[in-house]
């Protein structure tokens, strides 16, 4: 194996410098090096979306990236979206609409929706479902997640 690499990146606004194996996955880096275990790994082949994070503002699969590729990047994870005592808006909508059951896929959905709300109209349910189609939830059947996003889209139009 080649030598270890020094990386510096921002995660949820905090800067980290670490020396890592070049082959270390970004998902494993977040979970096991930084202890940010809210990012979950569901398939390790980029299908399920549980590991979705924001990389420089756009959603990305942390299981399909190496930590070294995030050098210099701004990463956002579920831990940056709110706290147990003060949930963020997407988290709050998920709670109101019972859009989660076991909670394992949920962080990936929240991060995907964050990106989708910023960059897409999501004007009807078909568009919302399309936006969610890269994330697998095995518990909910998606209907409550769609309800949560629909409510978020309505809220988005209102002045803060």
């Amino acid at each position: 194996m080649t030598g270890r690499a020094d990386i510096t990146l921002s995660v949820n606004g905090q800067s980290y410098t670490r020396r890592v194996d070049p082959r270390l996955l970004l998902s494993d880096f977040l979970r096991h090096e930084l202890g940010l275990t809210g990012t979950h790994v569901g398939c390790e082949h980029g299908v399920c979306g549980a590991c979705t994070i924001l990389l420089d503002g756009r959603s990305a699969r942390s299981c399909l990236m190496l930590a070294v590729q995030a050098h210099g990047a701004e990463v956002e994870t579920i831990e940056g979206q709110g706290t147990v005592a003060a949930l963020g808006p997407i988290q709050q909508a998920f709670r109101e609409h019972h859009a989660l059951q076991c909670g394992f896929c949920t962080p990936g959905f929240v991060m995907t929706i964050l990106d989708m709300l910023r960059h897409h109209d999501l004007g009807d349910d078909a568009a919302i479902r399309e936006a969610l189609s890269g994330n697998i939830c095995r518990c909910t059947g998606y209907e409550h997640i769609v309800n949560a996003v629909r409510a978020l889209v309505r809220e988005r139009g209102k002045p803060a």
Partner: protein
Amino acid sequence: MTGAPDAVELRPKLVGQRVRRTEDPRLLAGAGRYVDDLTPPGALHVAIRRSDQPHARIRGIGATEALALPGVVAVFDARDLEGMIRPAIPASRMAGYHATPIWPLARGTVRYVGEPVVAVLAESRYVAEDALELVAIDYEPLPFAIRAADAAADGAPLLHEDAGTNVIIAREFARGDVDAVFRDAPVIVGGRFRMTRKTAVAMENRSYLAAWDRGRAALTLHSSTNIPGIIRDVLAGCLELPGNRLRVVAPDVGGSFGGKGSLYQEEMLVAALARRLERPVKFTSDRLEDLSATSQAFDEVIEAELALDAEGMLLGLRAEVTGDIGAYSIYPWTGALEPVQVASFLPGPYRLAHYRGRVRGVLTPKPPTGPYRGVGRPSSTFAMERLIDMAARKLGMDPMEIRRRNLVTAPEFPYRTASGIVWDRSAFQECLAAACDHADYPALLRARDAARAAGRWVGIGLASYAELTGIGSRISVAPGMPINTGTETAAIRIDATGAVTAAFGIASHGQGLETTLAQVIADELGCRMEDVEVQHGDSALLPASSGTYASRSAVLAGGAATLSARVVKAKLLRAAAHLMDVPAEALEASGGIIRARSSNTSMSFQEVAQAVYAGMGRIPREQREELTASETYDPYLGTAGSATHLAMVEIDPGTYGVTVTRYVVAEDCGRIINPLIVDGQVQGGVAQGIGAALLEEVVHDDDGQCVTASLADYLVPIATGMPEIGIVHVEAVLPATLGGFRGMGEGGTIGAPAAIANAVADALSPLGIEVDTLPVTPDRIFRMVEAARLRNPGQRTGA
């Protein structure tokens, strides 16, 4: 006890309210704790070399190179484990059954691709996986029969030689004189129905972490299981450890659907290795391992015939069920769980006098089958509901009408089915009517007919079913299983600070039981929900427990919660009565405050608890009672849950893809604790049922290789393929369970495959096509349509 029931009803109740879940904030904030989130210092990571052979003798295993890799600590195969752990035996009292022992690693012979053979332990998972490649295994291939029909034939190569046969399960259910009925029946329909192999695909892969406490000589296993109590009990025997030095904890668990509801070899392995090496040992499956070694499901061929009279009344049913149970019988349910339930539930919710159902369970070199949401009933309902529709078509009768004539009616309950299952009163007829009303069935029929006249492939399907839920101690959840799963205990205590803690044997893994049980307890005790901490998923909480499965937890744990809360409340009120100097009967509690009805005096739970536990002399010594109770509930028989599903589909004549355009569920789950959670369970269950009907299939090729071992090959539903689901809750007559609850976690998956199959068959009925295999994929539809075109070259077969 204080208060008549009607007085209780005057208070605003939490049961029945759309209460937001207490689990959610931690799960939403990324603060949940799943097993893989736990990594204690010094933990070793296990990677497992699995068999790439369906059936082979292990001639030799070479680990020298693997051991030489820096970071590798140890390599174990079955020989190295001798004396460290005993096998688990999935016993059953069923006649003719042969139990296949479960060892952590293959001993001498491998019997399916994916079976664990060698464990590599290393300082990191990356290194452990590197080292797997360096392990050399020399196999001598053995003959095998990969299809159940071949494996059951005389002279087939034996998978377990000491069993003497591959057919380790054979059973018959019979009532009446079915052959005589068939001789004279005016109408007979039949088919060969196949529910292909599925797997649960919980989003969290299985993960286990064992830690050995040298000082106490005690083991703690954190496991992504939904049966921590059962795992504790079996491992205590395998490891020869008493229960007070063996604890199994299921922390947050990322779904199971039955896939995490059996003992796994990796659980045995990490436990044995942690004790031997005196270091924490962790295994986390990847998705390839999940799709090739987690328990799989269904995989039956059901050859069945139904006899009816000219008015469409059912006369008799006969069936031969062949279940492909895989290479081993699973613990504790055994390989009989799935196929035997297909035969026992086949008569469904219908009045049927004459039945004969024969079932065989056949060993094949595939992963073991085990529980998967619905167990048996998705297959049995699929076959029976298809037969009902085929009969309706033959008779020119509407599918709703034929069901209305044959569903058991209210005066007939309790109704003993032809296989011996007893249905207590449940809204069989009412659910059928409610589903059709909600969907405006006549309007749907007109819309279908108009679409059909325009050459479109549009169809409507109904499916009615009943299931046993909340099963008590009278019935084994799995056939002949010697383990009682019919009781549940709630240990409730009000502590010295006035806080309420309730410990259960269940293991919630997405069902929201921390919320629903707190609703029940808060109502009974008269406190606030946020005052109640529900503990579960930990074998150390109670003397005996099993877990959450078989739609049992709301019924059994809800009942136990009610009983214990009543005892604690009575103690609390006796203490308060003394402290407030009023009779206990004059007190009532709500919102965590105890008030005297006739005066302004009140005390909080906290004040009473402090007086009981910490106040010097405030309560006379002979009247002092700890504010605790541990009561057990046993519903004995359990209760029926029932529903009718209605699906409307359209098939694209270009792609042969099926779109579900309408979906309605009318179901009777008794008294609803939390409608939000019930709706979520129905929607999630239906999604899995639609997956089973249209997408999901584990495929093993003729060489025994699983060719669907990624989520790009094993397809599960995504948001774009799912319809909105209309849900009607029919609360006809409450069951006799404590609280009036029925179980409802599995129903969605039971009804949906049949409803979709009937809808697709209806859509293709102008071509004379019957659906007999699920999933009904575009490929299968294409082949059916092509075959129909060959049969009827002149007929117009599509848009």
